[in-house]
């Protein structure tokens, strides 16, 4: 992808050895402009995973398996009073559409399914497969 104009620097101000820091301020976890979080790095995706919160059991398999750390989580307290990561969505800025998350999803009806890139998420959820009666 093209570098944004405001990031273009000259040879005398360039990152030494092309080493890119993740954080501007590591202690405050302030991301640097080089952090891939700030880039569109998923332009070439043709199929996307859609996440169905209603079916998810928060096993976090997708979070572990995702090669691009796309799964967004929230820290919640579960019924037994323990801290747990709740999957809340997918960062489509990072997702390349590899489909590994769908493969590892263990629910009887998958909580993650691949849809063509242009599909509206609500449409996809409406068309989600139902349990055979």
């Amino acid at each position, binding site marked *: 992808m093209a570098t944004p104009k405001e990031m273009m620097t000259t040879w005398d101000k360039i990152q030494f050895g*092309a080493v890119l*820091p993740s954080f501007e301020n590591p202690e405050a976890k302030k991301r640097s402009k080089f952090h891939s979080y700030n880039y569109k790095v998923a332009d070439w995706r043709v199929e996307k995973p859609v996440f169905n919160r209603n079916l998810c059991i928060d096993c976090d398999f997708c979070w572990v398996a995702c090669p691009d750390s796309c799964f967004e989580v929230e820290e919640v307290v579960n019924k037994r009073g323990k801290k747990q990561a709740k999957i809340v969505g997918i960062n489509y800025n990072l997702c390349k559409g590899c489909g590994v998350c769908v493969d590892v999803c263990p629910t009887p009806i998958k909580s993650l399914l691949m849809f063509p890139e242009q599909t509206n998420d609500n449409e996809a959820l409406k068309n989600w497969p139902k349990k055979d009666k």
Partner: protein
Amino acid sequence: MAQKYELKSKEVWDGNTAAAHALRQAQIDVVAAYPITPSTPIVQTYAQFLADGYVDGEFVKVESEHSAMSACVGAAAAGGRVATATSSQGYALMVEVLYQASGMRLPIVMTVVNRALASPLNIHGDHGDLYLGRDAGWIHLIANNPQEAYDMTLCAFKIAEDSRVRLPVTSNQDGFLVSHTAQVVKPLQDEDAYKFIGSYKALNPLLDTANPVTHGAQTEEEWHFEHKATQHKALMDSVNVIEEIFAEFEKVSGRKYNLVESYKIEDADVALVVMGSAYETAMLAVDKARENGIKAGLVMTRSFRPFPHNEMAKKLANVKAVAALDRNAPMGAMGALYNEVAGALTANGQSAVMTNYIYGLGGRDTTVEHILEVIKETNKNAEAGKRVTDLQGFVNLRGPKLSFN
């Protein structure tokens, strides 16, 4: 903590042993190497030092030279002082990663024992591997004897790791003629050597998990040019740092090194440019030529890259004819030394007559008589004030005279 190695003020070492001791004294964090003739004893001796408790760092046995340099790149990016050794085919296999190391600005030190490149296969000394790495963005220091192999290896660490440089450095010595020739070497004591080099300062280390960084980023047409220009600038500017560090080294060792070494060049009409062990042979030839009434002199670049073109031109300011002796098959051109020196002279408006000689390929003997013959031929150009000999000749080649114009 590593044991102290007892060293006498004078040791009898060959070039390989000298280089291995310099590596030991540098207290390297990681050495990853795949032994190859004639540099095998550097790796072997270093591993023995490790086994005997004289080294604290890691030694990584790898499956090829490509892996050796790759492991070095990884370890250096992780934030350690790193070194390796190789020769010839191993060097050739490393080449891809040499470019990575220099572009990533990793101050790796590589002790190279120069050996011919196949084919035909040959284990003996010439500068085929050195010339192969010429454009890899490394600094290449040249040693002519075991003492210099030791000294240049120590200096290599200090030059590479200088904050103004941060580039990988090779310390080169001729296969067998230096690497396997035992001579008296005056080493520094361990603490003095380490004090000279200094402790390693990591820059953007990968292992700093509190401040994660990306090494080896991809840069396309928008960025690559700027990065390469910056790297080239560091290499060009490093001549000043090299001179500075040579001056510092003189203070601790009493041995003076220069960007361009010379012998009896001050009043010379005829100059030879030679690099490596043949420099010392050429010194004797210069003496003989002077006995025969030819005012001969000798120059050598201590660093092949960066090439000190202005210093070289200055040394050759008053000569009438120059012969550049290249120990590498030039394959369709003049030798690299001829090109560099001719360029340096032209750029400075100097017009000494230039010729090129190819010598010593695959370890072919080059004696005082051979070099004396070159001086005599070059003297014809000096006397005529123009080129009357062939442009490119071959020294000690069997068969009818081979030359090019």
